[in-house]
């Protein structure tokens, strides 16, 4: 706006005050506390605190449990992102193809977005439950003895499936919007040039979809990093034997169960760094719109 907007001294401050107060009290202050805690160590009775510099971080990176949790987080995140994105792209392409029933499919596919990750976990947990689960029963019939209470792999697969399932609707919506934004004339031009549907997909549609794909990749990874806490907590609780202990879960259990404040804070700081890095990457790419 070039012209002078309203000239008031107090009013704008009054208007931003609630937002600012909540931001400061519940976001900035705790975040700086976490930063501060991460360089302190408390004795076992919480009586004295000692400044230890980066020792908490050094301890973390020397701790095999933490490194394992790091690895698990990455495996989990990328598996969820890949599985869910491939499935939803497949569905979106077909929904974009069919003229009739397009919006019906959309309605049927989008509403799982509304399901809380924790609930998604519970549903899949029930289907795979070793005693009553319908899917584990089918697997048993096929000769596989599924047990996510005992097998780390089974537990991991369970949370990946549940997390990916919940995210399909979100990815589907964005892929569909992305596909519908591709000018039909481009596709027609390629068809006239003799490119068949498969060829067109690889040489035209996929490159033009790359901004959407990249955006969704970041969103899905962030989702898998943080929003799946409930899913894991409600089902495997990080187990068995830490096989599904992703970083967010570890921050929680170290801090609230293990009461290791410094270590938990240091992990928080690492997580924050990851989120900020992801956000920055996302913004830079969104701004450049991803070169085709």
């Amino acid at each position, binding site marked *: 706006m070039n012209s002078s907007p309203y000239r008031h001294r107090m*009013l*704008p401050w009054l208007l*931003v005050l609630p937002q600012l107060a909540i931001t400061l009290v519940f976001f900035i202050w*705790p975040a700086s506390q976490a930063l501060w805690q991460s360089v302190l160590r408390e004795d076992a009775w919480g009586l004295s605190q000692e400044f230890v510099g980066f020792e908490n971080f050094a301890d973390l990176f020397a701790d095999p449990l933490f490194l394992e949790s790091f690895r698990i987080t990455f495996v989990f995140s990328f598996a969820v992102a890949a599985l869910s994105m491939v499935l939803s792209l497949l569905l979106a392409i077909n929904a974009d193809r069919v003229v009739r029933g397009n919006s019906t499919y959309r309605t049927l596919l989008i509403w799982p977005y509304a*399901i809380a990750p924790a609930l998604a976990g519970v549903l*899949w947990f029930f289907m795979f439950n070793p005693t*009553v689960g319908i899917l584990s029963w089918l697997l048993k019939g096929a000769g596989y003895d599924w047990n996510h209470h005992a097998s780390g792999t089974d537990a991991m697969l369970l949370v990946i499936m549940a997390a990916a399932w919940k995210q399909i609707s979100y990815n589907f919506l964005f892929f569909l*919007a992305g596909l519908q934004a591709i000018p039909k004339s481009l596709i027609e031009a390629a068809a006239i040039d003799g490119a068949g549907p498969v060829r067109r997909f690889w040489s035209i549609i996929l490159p033009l979809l790359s901004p959407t794909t990249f955006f969704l990749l970041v969103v899905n990874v962030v989702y898998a990093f943080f929003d799946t806490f*409930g899913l894991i907590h409600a089902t495997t609780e990080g187990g068995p034997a830490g096989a599904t202990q992703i970083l967010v879960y570890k921050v929680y259990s170290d801090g*609230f169960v293990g009461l290791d404040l410094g270590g938990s804070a240091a992990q928080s700081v690492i997580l924050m760094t990851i989120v900020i890095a992801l956000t920055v990457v996302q913004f830079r790419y969104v701004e450049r719109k991803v070169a085709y």
Partner: protein
Amino acid sequence: MVENRPILNANSHILLLLGVAVTLLPIWITFVASTHASEELLRAPIPMWPGDQLWQNYAEVLSGGITGAGGVPVGVMMLNSLVMALSIAIGKIAISIIAAYAIVYFRFPFRMGVFWLIFVTLMLPVEVRILPTFKVVADLGMLNSYAGLSIPLIASATATFLFRQFFMTVPKEMVEAARMDGAGPVRFFIDVLLPLSRTNIAALFVILFIYGWNQYLWPLLITTDESYYTVVMGIQRMVSAAEQLPVWNHVMATAMLAMLPPALIVILMQRQFIKGLIETEK
């Protein structure tokens, strides 16, 4: 599409139906399980067709809850969830829209500083700063209260950002015309800007209601008093109980109930939902 090959079309329909089936299968199984007596859910294979215990199961969980999981009636939990989701959605929209209004329509010192301060919160999900945030809430005496459940989650960079983007697309002549007509900042906001933001508010409401309803970690931390349990987190207690007791029918009925309000909102407000989803992520 370019070609209209019936076989390809049929393929697409089959694939889509398969996708829909995979998406709906867990819901169907949940629903079916919630309509049987607990005795039928002791061992696989469980029935795949609805039973006749629907009303009984739902009535029991709504009023009675599950022993071994605190015994709080699910009806109470649903009410807690509703209060939390509504306060978060309405609170977020209210404080974001006025903050965005101040940032776009006023010049004041540190304006951009304020904007960035708010923007930074976008990068700090609750999950990464749980311990210190929990401590702040505890120190303020807000544990086990609706205020504690909702206020810390009310600040929202996303909503502020969205409203800011929208306000910047409103032609500046609109505010000039209003000033000519003698409308001060408050009147302009109420008479012009607010009605113009209606669709944006509706879209955000859908997204934020779901966000609030589906909160898990936060209520888990700050409610030790069972009467403040929300349904999404309460179900975790029931699952643990169901590992010992044959109450899967009740757990699944609760799961259905927990899904119902957000799912209804998505289906009934589909247009606003899609708009909200796509705009908040821009």
